[in-house]
């Protein structure tokens, strides 16, 4: 057996902050603590922008190019593994699309919130001045619908994790905590080595996220 690193620290932090912030966002909206809801939304926005950057220039398993596969790969995966095929490190072809779907709906969720207006016009997203009242109301409706879609995707995600955990005996939850996976020594496809420029790439992603969140949350008014 060998231990291979599959999830880097930034991805793990991103992953676990997300459910915390989504829970808090839901709670703050339910209790009409709209200042907190906005702050929480900005934090999710930051996470999302970071994730998009990391999907472009982060470590191998975080990159969209490494896990967004064509329909043929997805079908082959669903039909079952070929004997002697190398074990998958990172997202499998089906899981990759589930990640993409989650990120997409999350983008709609955060994006609609930025422009949403509430019924009495007292509370609104930081970019709502760019849209009409009626458009802001429609985006508030979309914000609600997309949250329900997000919940459905989260449910699918959890069921899938449980299935892998118990039916397949794959310890996905632990792997997302410590970042490693145990594999038979020669059965895995070799991962490209971590590039030495990773810290610079990380700084670039964090910096870009911070700047974007600052600009958007201030409504591009400076």
């Amino acid at each position, binding site marked *: 057996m060998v231990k291979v690193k599959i999830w880097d620290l930034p991805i793990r932090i991103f992953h676990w902050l997300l459910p915390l912030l989504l829970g808090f966002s839901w709670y703050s909206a339910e209790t009409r603590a709209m200042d907190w809801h906005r702050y929480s939304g900005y934090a999710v926005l930051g996470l999302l922008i970071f994730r998009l950057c990391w999907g472009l220039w982060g470590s191998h398993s975080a990159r969209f190019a490494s896990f967004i596969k064509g329909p043929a790969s997805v079908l082959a995966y669903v039909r079952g593994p070929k004997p002697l095929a190398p074990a998958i490190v990172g997202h499998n072809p089906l899981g990759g699309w589930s990640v993409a779907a989650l990120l997409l709906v999350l983008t709609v969720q955060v994006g609609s919130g930025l422009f949403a207006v509430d019924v*009495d*016009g007292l509370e*609104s997203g930081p970019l*709502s001045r760019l849209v009409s009242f*009626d458009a802001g109301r429609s985006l508030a409706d979309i914000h*609600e619908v997309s949250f329900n879609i997000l919940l459905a995707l989260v449910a699918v995600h959890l069921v899938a994790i449980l299935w892998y955990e118990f039916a397949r005996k794959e310890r996905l939850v632990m792997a997302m905590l410590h970042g490693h996976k145990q594999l038979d020594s020669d059965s895995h496809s070799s991962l490209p080595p971590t590039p030495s420029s990773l810290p610079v790439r990380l700084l670039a992603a964090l910096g870009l996220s911070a700047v974007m969140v600052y600009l958007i949350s201030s409504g591009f008014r400076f």
Partner: protein
Amino acid sequence: MVEKNRQVKKGAVLLACTAMVVAGLAWAVDEQQVIESRQSNYRELGGAYKGIRDELQKRKPLMIMVRQHVDQLGMLAHSQANADWFPAGSGPEAGIETEALPVIWEQRDEFDRLREELNQEAIMLADVLASGDMDALADQHRALGMVCKQCHDVYRLEDD
């Protein structure tokens, strides 16, 4: 003679039925118009309120825009207080999509008081605007918004 009487009776019944159907339809159309136009008026009220806020958030608000939105808000708030946007029968029982709650007609006095309060706040908003104090305008704008919320919290169905 008997035959003719019967025919007259038949005709009368038919006429009565038609009249009832027509009246019913007219009534429904009427309710629909009342409900839809008050909703569109409220959306315009929301637009005026938001328009003021959008300007106030700018570093240099365009006064001509602020004035226009304050005027429009004043007109709508006046109409909301003085015209009957909520005649009896224009609640959920009309079978038309509305967020107006039956409690409006059960606590009519309190509801009417809030309608008038909004009107008064709008008049004050115009006065503050005339004084030219932009900070006071922002405060008054917020105070007025609280009346919208106060009324919605009790009399409007929250759909989420």
